[in-house]
């Protein structure tokens, strides 16, 4: 294929993509609405000097507080990270660290193409027609699943107990990218670069699709969740709190640190963050104290400069006041819940799973977690479910007795559901 043919191929691949009507007008309208004028030379120099001085003052203050630099060694008081070879789920002091995968997984590429699976059995299925038909995926992956993520319109990464695999939808082919069998959460920007959280709470990074994984210090350990919203901004969450980066991971700073009172029974076992953009996000913290379990939802509207506890399942002393803060007891209690799915700057949903009762409740908030509206999930006798959302369609994946995968879709943000299988 010569260069002329190559150019034709590029044109054929991308020319069909067009901006929507009025897109250019909207773009320039935004410029027209900008209240700031571009600076002239004199104002530019003065402005730059003022900004530089302000930054110097702020930096000096932050350095004095020890907040700017990522810690180079384990801060006093925190447990030493587990050995890299330890793939166990156990955290500090023998309390189980809930850094394990959820029971069910869903990854929606668009409203038609979805991967769904059960982490325990490793059952994995693919639909390309919006859930009408499903194809069981077989290959080298036969054991437990940990995470699924589409990294482009043809490629999904599947983290399993047998390693990290790349699945190509066009060829139905599998490629083993890494023998690491402890990658419980994936956050890849594309098929080549990304990060993962390990079972031991480490953060690893790759620039070659997962073949090489390098541990990164994010100023927090253990980590149970990490999320990037841009090339420069990311948040990592764990039982100790939340850390964030503004410079692509070069430095990390703590945004939220938990200080349990002496003699506090129980501990935070898992944390999750979910950001809609660089400003608005949620965090979810699980707390376990003996038989008592509970979780608290926090929210930020300023990129994590301030985190406010908004809602919780609060019963039997879990979570304790130092974690709960002023959160309202607005969520129904259940021993398990799915990952939080952030659907807007102030809105999110999750599935509360009352496993012993075999019931599930879908709860949604539209006011940053303060108030929740809950409705019964569209099945009975089912196991823990998870939800995923992309575009107009919501997807629910769960385990339904001997029937295996339960899959349902909702076109109206969870108000109504259609069971797709069984």
């Amino acid at each position, binding site marked *: 294929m010569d*260069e002329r043919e*190559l*150019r034709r*191929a*590029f044109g*054929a691949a*991308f020319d069909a*993509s067009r*901006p*929507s009507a009025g*897109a*250019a007008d*909207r*773009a*320039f309208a*935004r*410029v*027209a609405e*900008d209240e700031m*004028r*571009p*600076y*002239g*030379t004199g104002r530019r120099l003065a402005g730059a000097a003022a900004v530089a001085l302000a930054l110097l003052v702020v930096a000096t203050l932050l350095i004095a507080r020890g907040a700017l630099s990522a810690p180079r060694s384990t801060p006093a008081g925190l447990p030493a990270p587990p050995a890299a070879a330890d793939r166990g789920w156990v955290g500090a002091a023998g309390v189980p660290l809930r850094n394990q995968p959820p029971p069910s997984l869903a*990854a*929606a*590429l*668009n409203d*038609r193409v979805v991967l769904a699976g059960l982490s325990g059995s490793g059952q994995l299925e693919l639909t390309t027609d919006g859930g009408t038909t499903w194809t069981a995926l077989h290959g080298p992956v036969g054991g437990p699943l940990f*995470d699924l*993520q*589409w*990294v*482009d*319109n043809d*490629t999904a990464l599947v983290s399993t107990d047998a390693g990290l695999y790349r699945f190509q939808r066009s060829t139905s082919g599998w490629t083993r990218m890494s023998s690491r069998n402890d990658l419980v959460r994936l*956050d*890849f*920007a*594309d*098929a*080549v*670069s990304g990060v993962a959280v390990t079972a031991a709470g480490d953060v690893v990074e790759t620039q070659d*699709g997962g073949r090489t994984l390098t541990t990164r210090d994010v100023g927090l350990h253990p980590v149970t969740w990490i*999320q*990037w*919203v*841009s*090339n*420069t901004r990311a948040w990592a969450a764990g039982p100790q709190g939340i850390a964030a980066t503004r410079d692509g991971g070069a430095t990390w700073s703590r945004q939220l640190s938990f200080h349990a009172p002496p003699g506090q029974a129980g501990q935070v076992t898992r944390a999750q963050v979910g950001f*809609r*953009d660089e400003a608005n996000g949620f965090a979810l913290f699980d707390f376990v104290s003996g038989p008592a379990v509970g979780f608290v939802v926090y929210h930020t509207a300023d990129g994590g400069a301030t985190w406010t506890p908004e809602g919780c399942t609060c019963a039997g002393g879990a979570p304790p006041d130092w974690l709960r803060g002023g959160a309202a007891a607005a969520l129904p209690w259940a021993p398990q819940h799915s*990952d*939080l*799915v*952030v659907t807007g700057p102030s809105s999110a949903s999750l599935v509360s799973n009352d496993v012993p009762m075999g019931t599930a409740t879908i709860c949604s908030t539209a006011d940053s977690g303060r108030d929740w509206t809950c409705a019964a999930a569209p099945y009975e006798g089912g196991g823990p479910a998870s*939800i*995923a*959302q*992309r575009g107009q369609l919501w997807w629910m994946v769960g385990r339904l007795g001997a029937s295996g995968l339960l899959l349902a879709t909702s076109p109206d943000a969870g108000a109504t559901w259609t069971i797709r299988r069984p």
Partner: protein
Amino acid sequence: MVTATTTAELLERSVAGDRVAFERLFRPLYDDAFRLAAAMLSDASLAEDAVQEALFNAWRKLHTFRTGEDVRPWFLTIVANQCRSLRRARWWSVQRVAEVVAPSRHDPGSADRLDLEAALARLPRRARLLLVLRYYLDMSFEDIGAVVGASPTAVKSSTHRALVKLRSEWAPEVTD
């Protein structure tokens, strides 16, 4: 077509805060900017967002533009950087999705198109950018160098390596 003389005038007026002049200067670049963003992000909606943000950034940074240089590569640099930032936007990673191609572009009969997109997506970002600028936007090595901050010679060499890599990832059907 905006002549060199009027470009200088439009630029001067834009820097002074004339939004009409700014639009006259950059409106002709919108289509190329969208094509670049669409090829880098494989998503028309995201591409719109990237170009809109890039235009806003160009408006705010116009005072840094060096008079006498070509505004097109300067602006496409801003677009490319905005794409890079957006590509890491993982707010939906909680829902386990990726940047997607608009469904309407999925022609079941065009396996080659899908293969090329998939092959491009597997390349490092810089390689993808070089190939898109060269073979989709038809830019010269000089102009590409202005976008990526490298000499034309270096760009030519890097583009060749990227092309070799692309060909190893992509095997279009050969029709007689």
